[in-house]
């Protein structure tokens, strides 16, 4: 049987990884996934697989599945208004359905 949950996606530079992970841990989350990539945005091009001089500027996508929508919103609020306020990247939410509810 499935349970409703929410998925928070965060696109940010590797530079922010420690701060994003600290935020997620402090919110009491048990887990998240990270996918390296690239892209284009207002700050120009981030390469996905080809070398870019500064590795800290590589794009990472965090996918965080969690049960509580309010927590997800609070996280997104902190990210957009504080940690990522002056930095490249974006954040979005999607509803999902999960199994193994005890994991979350």
């Amino acid at each position, binding site marked *: 049987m499935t349970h409703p949950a929410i998925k928070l996606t965060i696109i940010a530079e590797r530079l922010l990884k420690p701060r994003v992970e600290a935020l997620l841990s402090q919110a009491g989350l048990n887990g998240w996934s990270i996918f390296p990539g690239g892209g284009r945005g207002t*700050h120009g091009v981030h390469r996905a697989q*080809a*070398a870019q*001089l*500064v590795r800290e*500027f*590589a794009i990472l996508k965090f996918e965080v599945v969690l049960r509580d929508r309010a927590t997800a919103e609070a996280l997104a609020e902190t990210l957009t208004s504080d940690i990522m306020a002056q930095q490249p990247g974006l954040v979005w939410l999607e509803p999902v359905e999960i199994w193994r509810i005890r994991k979350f």
Partner: protein
Amino acid sequence: MDMTLDFLAVFLAQLQKPTLAFLLAGMVLAALGSRLDIPDAVYQFIVTVLLLKIGIGAGIALRDAEPGDILLPALAAIGLGVGIVFLGRITLGLLPNLRFGDSVATAGLFGAVSASTLAAGMVMLEEDGLSYEAWVPALYPFMDIAALLTAIVLAERARTKGKGALSLRAIITESLRGAALSALLLGVALGLLARPDPVYASFYEPLFRGFLSILMLLMGMEAYARLAELRRVAHVYAVYGLVAPLVHGALGFAVGGALHLATGFSPGGVVILAVMAASSSDVSGPPTLRVAIPSANPAIYIGTSTSLGTPVALLSIPLWMALAEVAFSQ
């Protein structure tokens, strides 16, 4: 007159060296729209191996060096790092319409050191048989951290009107934990404390030039790519990017020359010091500044350093070599 001709002859011959040729080739490739690229994983590895090699070589040399020999050059490196940032801050400060954060961050990168430029200098000196105290490349972190710290402190003081509680210690620690300085210092420690000579001779040394040629290709491509971004920002930075490496290199050469007179510092050492001073950070400086001076526009300071500062610094290496040949040849 004779000296000028000598100098020009040496300089032109130097420009044909492979290291610079790969840099120019990278620019040409990018300009022609080639789809050739180097995988990120390989690039990361190449940089690590180059820095380990520089570190191990320096560490092995430090075994036999007197602490006294190194003290003065280390202070000189710190002085150059700090001095170049102040110089940049004052020069750029005289110009109207530049934002303070941008100018300090740019001066910070130009005071800091580029590992690839340093490596290129080492290879080019070696090809010419111009020898230097093998521990000189270990001065890199002194100049690099001094410059970045100076820029960060200047920016912070302006922001907090001198009341800021900036943790210098934290910034130094973070710098040293970065991949680049970690690899370099790890190499120094290994060279100094262990006996890595066989693996140094069989692996790190032989791969050095080849890996550098790949890195030069990449620096050329990146320089071209950043040029587009730079075009949109204040033109005064373009002038700074073209002129500053020459001024800083000359400064480094002068300081090195003084060391030569005072302590017998080798002509090759003087050139390496000039190369470090002329170089500007492309890899480890930018993220440090992005975090520490968030008000500055990265397109400006990274663009100025990577697309102008670094090529000029690389192309000026033969200049310092020719200068050394002329100045120290009696």
